[in-house]
């Protein structure tokens, strides 16, 4: 293995809570329109659905999203990418780095504003999301995995430790333009 991560354990940034809260609020707009349309014909049903939607909205805004973000931890090392998540049921995914086919760096409108991104790890027959990490961390992760694949392509049997360069790939540290990290 040629490079090591400087800071292997990465929590998602606090901006993720804001982004997901805005996403949830935006989701309420079409839902509200649908409820208004239903209300024109069946007001009682619209009122019941509205109350349920409002309860779900407040539950998501003030409990689910903060707790989900708190419990979402990504860990990277030479061999595995580990994702721990879940509030009540904890899920623990360990992905061998060698099984990653390629990775996609996705940036939405809000993520662009907050300098965040999502890295999609394309695995054989499935995919895994590393959501709401800092843009520089995402770029480093993509570069790191791509460089690993390129090294394998050059000489799959080459495991000479003398070839290890001194530079380290800083994923967790460094901070970004908005001064976080």
């Amino acid at each position, binding site marked *: 293995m040629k490079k090591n991560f400087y800071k292997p354990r990465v929590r998602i940034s606090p901006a993720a809570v804001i982004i997901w809260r805005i996403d949830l609020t935006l989701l309420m707009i079409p839902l509200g329109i649908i409820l208004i349309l239903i209300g024109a014909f069946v007001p009682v049903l619209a009122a019941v659905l509205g109350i349920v939607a409002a309860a779900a909205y407040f539950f998501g805004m003030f409990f689910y999203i903060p707790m989900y973000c708190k419990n979402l931890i990504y860990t990277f090392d030479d061999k595995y990418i580990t994702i721990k998540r879940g509030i009540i049921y904890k899920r623990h995914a360990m992905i061998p780095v060698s099984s990653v*086919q*390629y990775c996609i760096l996705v*940036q939405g409108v809000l993520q662009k504003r907050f300098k965040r991104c999502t890295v999609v790890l394309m695995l054989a027959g499935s*995919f895994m999301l590393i959501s709401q990490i800092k843009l520089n961390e995402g770029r480093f992760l993509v570069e790191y995995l791509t460089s690993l694949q390129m090294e394998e392509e050059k000489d799959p049997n080459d495991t000479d430790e003398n070839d290890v360069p001194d530079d380290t790939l800083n994923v967790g540290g460094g901070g970004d333009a908005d001064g976080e990290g």
Partner: protein
Amino acid sequence: MRMEKDDRFKRTHPYSMLRHIKIYAVLLVLTIVQQIFLRPDELAAFIGSLGLNAFYVLTVLFYFITEYTNRVCRMTDAGFEVKSGIFFKRQYIIPYRKMCSAMFYTNIISMLFNAESVSVDTAGGVRRKYDFSAYFSRKKANEVRNFIEGDKEPEFIFRSRITSIILMSAFWANPVTGIIFMVPVISNVNRILGSETVQMIIMGSINQQWKVIAMWISPAAALLAAIILLSWAISMLNVFLRYVRFKSVRLGEYIITSKGLLTRTRSYTRVSCISSVSIDQSLFMKLLKLKSCTVTMISAGRQKGDRSLLFSADSYDTVQNGMTSITGIPNEERSVVKRAKMSLFSYIYYPLIIFIVLLALIILSYRFRFIANSMRLLLYIFIFIVVWWLMFRMFAYSHSRIAVNDKCLIVCTFKKMTLKKHYIPFEMIQYAELNHSPFQKRKKKCTMIVSVYSENKRSVKIKQLPREAAVRLLSSKDIVIVEK
């Protein structure tokens, strides 16, 4: 396999944008432009009258033009680099090492625009879509092709015979496809000439052409048969044009297959990504002493109508030896385990029951005179099909077996009406599952299902194997066995 980073592939061909836009959308926009120039003073009223349709068309146009301008594709040292997206920006690199297959596709319309589709696929993802797909000019697509091929010389070339392609087209043709082509034609002719004229033409042609053959057949059955036959002929022509000029070439680590006349498809398959190779033979092919060969892998069969053909129908020796030459998988069989003796009934169970039922119906049809001749004719057709099915199952019973060699597990079994001999490399076998019913347990038999490394959990199933011999064979090659 290296290529210096450059900007030659920065933009895809504008055809990639055009293919998304439906013809009706273009026509609607033309009408709008026409109206704007003709009556500029009534523009507001006109747009208002078009309402949502115009807004929708303009949005579609805007979206695809913007997507086109935002899409950047490059071949770099690291791999195929793609940046795309309007609101959601996506950026990724597909390393050359992870590439399982590449496909180049062109049809008459894209030829007119000098565009060619380039698609690259890996084992990644869950969608049945290519990981990277874009239209480039034919010159650029050719450069990508040359880059993949390098300067290697072909090691093995197979060219299909035209007769075998005609035969395969005849068997693969689906009359429903032909009906899809026929319905609008009949409908439009009906509208232009009038329904009575069309009926007269159809009935007249049928009466002339089918007079002798359909002497004892009712007009309704004759008309139905004629429509099905015509649909089948159209479909056959469609399949023929898609597979004619079929060629397989082994070039370095890739197998290159090219096919088609009006639509040209050229696909590159990495040999190390092949999950299994199958040599197929139907009963009809057995009578003509022919076999064909298909390949299973992650990205195979993505394109519509693609059967992942490696060899079209040809003589036994050509296909068997050619398969070894092109894939490097040996075709010799060692430690053969045949299906258990006295298990013919489980192979012919369904066709035998249907045969008995149909036979009873035919006898009853002569007893009850009110059953129409056309119905009796249908029963005869069905019984012929079932007899064919019964014969095929007997043929499958006599050939079902498993075996091994140095590189792969060989499973000879049947699927639908084709006998398939699967060559599965050991490293591509996920596990082998051995199931048995209470009857099988008593007679020490089992059903084996071999899961292959592929999309959609593809597997190969063989019935009525002697359990102990099967376990011994699989254990000798360290294949994971799951017993139920």
